[in-house]
């Protein structure tokens, strides 16, 4: 059981929870994730990357976007409430070492898992270039935190409402063309990671992507998170979440991410209707 210590709304659909989890805070490394479940009986288990942790307080920070019923349930929690089950840290930590120059590319909510990695890369003595992007200005998260880490910082929006009006792959290509990039890390929507991989491939820049597949247990049991990497079946929960982006079959991953789309849409629709009904009744 984990108590919610702090809750912040970062944008319309994006929330940040600081959770009491001393054991996880102590053991976690950059790149790892947790599984959250609001209550034991009927709630879904949701994998979320650890965006930050404070070992002295014994807390971890998770950031998530409300996309359906289960994330909405989490978003409705407030400081003092409890999340019944928090399991972690899960997955392999990011391999952090001094390689020289590292480009960190974060898209949308993907900036949250990228944050601890960029932080650790910087701490290891790398020159860190950060490119972050979102559809529009108000969906950008952790801008100040990322800016504070970066040796070079670029922000893009699809609609040009803030920073450059570009997809993140455009500045990524420019940087690769200039040369001197030793490693790229891309975290965001699958389609963004796919095109980041295609952007760096011709330059031979080693690129990692952190995959967010469907998961149930997160401990190497169900196989729901399987992806094809270099022609082999890999399990994101125990072999990942990070893989060589040039080897990942992103098309199949995107396909499988949509496995439960009809059920998710129905659940989301129902629960938003219910929410609207509840709000109406409160007003009466």
């Amino acid at each position, binding site marked *: 059981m984990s108590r919610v210590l702090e809750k912040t709304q970062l944008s319309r659909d994006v929330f940040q929870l600081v959770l009491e989890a001393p*054991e*996880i805070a102590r*053991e976690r490394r950059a790149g*790892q994730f947790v599984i959250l*479940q609001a209550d*034991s*009986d*009927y*709630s*879904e*288990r949701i994998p979320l990357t650890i965006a930050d942790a404070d070992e002295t307080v014994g807390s971890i920070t998770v950031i998530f976007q409300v996309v359906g*019923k*289960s994330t909405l*349930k989490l978003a409705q929690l407030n400081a003092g409430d409890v999340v*019944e*089950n*928090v*399991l*972690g*840290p*899960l997955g392999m930590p990011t391999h952090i070492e001094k390689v020289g120059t590292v480009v960190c590319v974060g898209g949308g909510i993907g900036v949250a898992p990228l944050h601890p990695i960029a932080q650790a890369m910087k701490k290891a003595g790398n020159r860190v270039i950060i490119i972050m992007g979102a559809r529009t200005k108000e969906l950008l998260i952790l801008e100040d935190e990322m800016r504070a880490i970066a040796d070079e910082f670029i922000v893009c929006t699809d609609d040009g409402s803030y920073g450059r009006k570009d997809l993140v792959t455009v500045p990524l290509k420019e940087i690769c063309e200039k040369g001197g990039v030793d490693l790229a890390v891309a975290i965001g929507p699958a389609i963004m990671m796919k095109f980041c991989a295609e952007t760096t491939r011709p330059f031979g820049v080693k690129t990692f992507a952190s995959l967010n597949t469907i998961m*149930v*247990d997160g*401990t*190497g*049991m*169900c*196989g*729901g998170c*399987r992806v*094809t990497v270099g022609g082999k*079946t890999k*399990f994101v929960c*125990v072999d990942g979440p990070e893989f060589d982006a040039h080897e990942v*079959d992103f098309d*199949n991953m995107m*396909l*499988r991410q*949509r*496995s*439960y789309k009809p*059920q*998710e849409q129905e*659940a989301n629709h129902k629960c938003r209707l219910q929410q609207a009904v509840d709000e109406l009744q409160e007003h009466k």
Partner: protein
Amino acid sequence: MSYIPAEKLRDEARELIEKIDFSALKPKDRLAIPMQEMPAQEPSVRAKNIQEVAIGYFEEQVRLEAERCLQCKNAPCIKGCPVAIDIPGFIKAAAEGDYQKSVNIIKNNSMLPAICGRVCPQETQCMAECTVGKSLKDMDKSVAIGRIERFVADWEREQGRMSLPEIAPATGKKVAIIGSGPAGLTAAADVRKAGHEVVLFEAFHKLGGVMIYGIPEFRLPKVILDKEIENLLSMGVTIKKNFLVGRTRKLSDLLEKDGFDAVFVGTGAGLPNFMNIEGEGLVGVSSANEFLTRANLMKAYTPDKADTPIFTGKKTAVVGGGNVAMDAARMALRVGAEEVYVIYRRTEKEMPARREEIAHAKEEGITFLFLTNPKRIIGDKDGKVTGIECLKYELGEPDDSGRRKPVEIKGSEFVLEMDSVIMALGNSSNPLISHTTPEINVNRWGNILADGDQKTSMDRVYAGGDIVLGAATVILAMGEGRKAAESINKLLAE
């Protein structure tokens, strides 16, 4: 075996009891008593609900079935039991109507009798050695040991007073048990009995391991599981759920920093196997582990309450022939599939599933395709499963397992329309403990190497159950948990 209504079984047993003089039964008379069938829900009804299929014996049936036992002096059945329960002893007590005594005898060796009575593969263990079956030249007619075990265990639970074993005075020693499946629970109980402090670590939010995520409600009701676990833990075991040893804490830290004197690893089976054929990445293909975990642990069989979705096709193929395949196939029916096919590359005779599960699956209308194996899974332009292409097989020479090896018949391809495929092909080992604890040696499949005392290559660390055996059974895991506990208790007594 065709379905016989429960009431009919009860009435037949009642009539028979009236006719038998139990005071003067000779072996020949005992052999003449018909084996008592397990009463079950009507197939077409149960295929649409999640309640337990097997209802359990009526009292009259227990009497008759227990009287079939010849009370052999050499008790071959005990040798067939992985935990060596005094089978003639508990059956005799059941025949006498002393159910408390009967269940107490079982509990000397097994802490989970209501579970074992339901899920043990008795026909390949105790019943395979039974003199009654041998005398009748039909091992399916051996004494139904598991059904009697289940009856007395259920009887005790329903009385609401489950007996607890005695616990030795506190020793001041502390033992970590990793995993709350059958191996871990058994080890926890036996170590606790010796007076050691026990902390049970479980990664999931519920206890029971495979018994909660894998074995479905209709075969092992969770209230029974919870009750049996609750009883066991009332001996004073500390539980740490949502705790993944290897990640939340390294195993070596438990020993070096957290003051544990010994560790038992019972982390169970791991990553599901796939066939590595074309189309396994399509939408609608899942492992049985995933399908059953969604259904059981996450309760996706109650879609109006559970948030976890489950893939429900109209036509489902399950590939495999073990208990997990049977569970997945029967669960598929219950979550909405209209047609379910079990595809198995050998024949029914080689199927590792329990006889009763195969019979139940057939009664429920599941179609079995023997000597058949998938070649590829076919999908549409959206990547959804539309069919499965199979090959016919024939049996060739015996292989390493002693079973005749299935050989494909060239050119025998055929396509079945399908919208979901569940792979029930067993598991490989979970790499977590071995990756994070290099001191523990594993074999080439990643299973932990343990000696005859369940000791691993790491000092003070023992292991048992599926993480050692590969995919096995609840009772074998319990047997290993028990053996490991014995070794740990011996180590800590030094």
